């Protein structure tokens, strides 16, 4: 990581913390950098920037670095950090907000797999109202080779009847699609 002048960063980029506050209702200024969130984070070993540092970088306005990090995409949304934060900061909610901000800013070059999974998942529930796993797996395989990496699981999953061949389509499948679209519209208007 390059050298960062902290006082300068804070003056120039104070508005990122406000943007995050607006997206999440969480004020990162409450964080006093005890590091407890990172200490208990089960995914910290696989992150490029540990959770407490992400929070610090938000305080300092380091928007691009944070939105382009792998951390926000490998966060497993387990909320252990939130359960343990002595300042009530809710890092898990911040991770959610940062993922959404990265999507809005188009800064997801670093997260192709994760974005593909989320997109295919939302497509599936928009289409059927419920998840149609078999189709999701096949479509994901075209994008990321998912099933080829799990050839040992595919056959037993079928023989053990763990996958339905056909989707269940709801009467209200259309409603789910409308919710997704209407939410995107409303959030777009208010951005």
């Amino acid at each position: 990581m390059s050298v960062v002048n902290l006082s300068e960063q804070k003056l120039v980029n104070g508005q990122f913390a406000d943007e995050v506050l607006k997206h999440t209702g969480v004020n990162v200024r409450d964080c006093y950098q005890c590091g407890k969130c990172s200490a208990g984070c089960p995914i910290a070993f696989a992150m490029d920037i540990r959770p407490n540092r992400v929070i610090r970088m938000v305080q300092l306005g380091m928007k691009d670095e944070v939105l382009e990090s792998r951390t926000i995409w490998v966060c497993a949304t387990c909320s252990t950090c939130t359960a343990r934060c002595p300042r009530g900061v809710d890092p898990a909610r911040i991770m959610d907000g940062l993922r959404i901000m990265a999507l809005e800013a188009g800064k997801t070059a670093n997260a192709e797999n994760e974005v593909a999974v989320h997109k295919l998942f939302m497509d599936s529930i928009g289409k059927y109202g419920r998840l149609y796993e078999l189709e999701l797996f096949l479509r994901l395989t075209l994008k990321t080779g998912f099933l080829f990496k799990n050839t040992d699981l595919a056959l037993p999953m079928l023989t053990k009847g763990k996958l339905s061949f056909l989707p269940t389509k709801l009467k209200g499948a259309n409603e789910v699609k409308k919710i997704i679209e209407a939410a995107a519209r409303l959030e777009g208007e208010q951005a």
Partner: protein
Amino acid sequence: MRYGYYPGCSLHSTAAEYEYSTRQVCEKLGITLEEIPDWNCCGASSAHSTSHLAGVAIPARNLALAEEKGLDVVAPCAACYQRLVTADYEMKHDPALKAKVEQVMDRKFNGTIGVKSTLEAVVESGLEKMTKALQKPLKGLKIACYYGCYLVKPPKIAHVDDPENPMIMDNIFRALGAETVDWPYKTECCSGSLVLSNTDITLKLARDIMQIAADSGANCIATPCPLCQPNLDMRVAQVNKKYGTNFDLPIFYFTELMALAFGVPKADLKFNKHFVEPTKLLADL
């Protein structure tokens, strides 16, 4: 008790054995499950990772449907439970958000119902009822009760029990004649939400969980989460290959073991759906 039952997508596909055993256990305990008509997917981690409003509104449609029936919602899947209870909490605490949710889902939600996990509903029916229904004590089982994250975190919202050392499942199994082990990974994450994108991470976490369970003296693991169960059970072979380990711990849904204790025949419980078949462990039961 009568509930609006929200099975969630997994219980209709990968976790059919959870669905079956949940229904059996509830029936034995006098809990009536009325499936919410036309329920939709809760959105899992994808909805709230891509839009806050959709992340609340998608599960909220199910709450609105249950409210029409005047029933509290009960959800066996820990992940669905957390999405439903979060939507409920956020709408009850943020009227402006609730108005937006109602607008995008084109339905009303008055907040007159609540959300529970099946684990809670079962516990609330009382240990006495359970011991009365007991036909086959779970002798010889040393269970690591693995609650996972979503039932207990974040604790302000998902508060089935203590976030660090929950006991409610332990208490059930002790009442049903099993031993449960004291272990530190009860609510550790298995990273089930990353299983489609980051398999390497999930293999390490699965390894850690099975290692600590085995080191703590468990001969099986029980969970209320249909993400955790396959994430451990289906991945055992991959974990063993990657880490040179030798795990063969059966991973149960907690309701499977309860149903067994209540006398539901083994054959009906379809343990052959498990990747690690518990034949030997359950031979005497």
